[in-house]
């Protein structure tokens, strides 16, 4: 029991630095949602139910473009498919935990809790399952309430910011900021380049179809580049 508690506190400490990122990001979402015309319940509900910033922005952007809701859902889910990787990579550590622990843990699986936890769990594979769970829940303890709260603050503040601050452009800048650090290899650059070219070329298509086609083409381009580069070496 005490090793679980220690792991929990270690998880809280390891997750704390990410609040610096989550708070402004949550505020930005609240702000953008208020500009887009969501009411306060919809805005906070989205942060509580979806808990995935990039997909929330994407889905909202698609809705603002006038596309039907299922296109917004598909776009948001496409952005979140990376979590399939997270889930698969945590499964060897958490797969043996009690079922209802896993049902709860799944809700708390986000970029930051995954990123922090997997480093520690891979480093210490001999930790007990309950200590591993404790660590994982520790990483989520601060960031989740901060995410909800900052969304609310952003919504409330958003209505008081004048238009000359060009906050319309905070969304594109935010997406660029999110993806730029991951463009760390040639296949990633190829995927990003194909995505931009196809999206601009097909932008005349309705219902964000251009985005789905661009994303599929770019994903295949990235994976194929990686495969060929690996085959050469």
């Amino acid at each position, binding site marked *: 029991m005490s090793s679980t508690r220690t792991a929990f506190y270690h998880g809280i400490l390891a997750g704390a630095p990410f609040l610096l990122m989550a708070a402004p990001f949550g505020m930005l979402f609240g702000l953008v949602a208020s500009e887009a015309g969501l009411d306060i319940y919809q805005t906070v509900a989205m942060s509580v139910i979806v808990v995935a910033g990039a997909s929330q922005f994407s889905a909202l952007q698609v809705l603002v473009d006038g596309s039907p809701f299922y296109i917004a859902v598909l776009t948001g889910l496409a952005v*979140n498919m*990376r979590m399939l990787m997270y889930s698969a990579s945590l*499964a060897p550590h958490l797969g043996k935990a009690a079922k209802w622990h896993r049902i709860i843990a799944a809700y708390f699986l986000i970029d930051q809790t995954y990123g922090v936890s997997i480093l520690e769990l891979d480093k210490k594979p001999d930790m007990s399952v309950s200590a591993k769970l404790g660590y994982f829940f520790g990483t989520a303890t601060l960031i989740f309430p901060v995410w909800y709260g900052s969304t609310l603050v952003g919504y409330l503040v958003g209505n008081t910011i004048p238009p000359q601050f060009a906050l*319309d452009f905070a969304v*594109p800048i935010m*997406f660029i900021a999110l993806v*730029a650090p991951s463009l*760390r290899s040639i296949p990633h650059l190829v995927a990003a380049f194909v995505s931009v070219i196809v999206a601009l070329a097909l932008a005349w298509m309705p219902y964000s179809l251009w985005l789905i086609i661009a*994303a599929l083409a*770019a994903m295949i381009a990235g994976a194929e580049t990686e495969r060929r580069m690996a085959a050469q070496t």
Partner: protein
Amino acid sequence: MSNLSIWLTIIFLGIGTYLIRYSFIGLFADKKLPDWLLRHLRYVPAAVMPGLVAPLVVWPAATGGDPDPARLIAAAVALAIGAIWRSVLGALIIGMAVLYLVQYLLA
């Protein structure tokens, strides 16, 4: 964008995202993703976000769809800062600062 479509988006995106999270922790704990699928999933963020953002940068709604030098420069700087420093927050803050600066200089 109706109220109903907003709520449907929130609920279905929430359920779908939860199921993605639960998938391997909960349902297929002893299964492995095939290599070809993992290889494609690695490029999901790089495939979705640049395409989503490109039309917003090139044809911003705030200028009625006309390309705007301040926004193009700000986007380029944010991209460079994010790629070089590997800092999401740094790219966000400096990108917006550059946007204000260039808007001020051109005004």
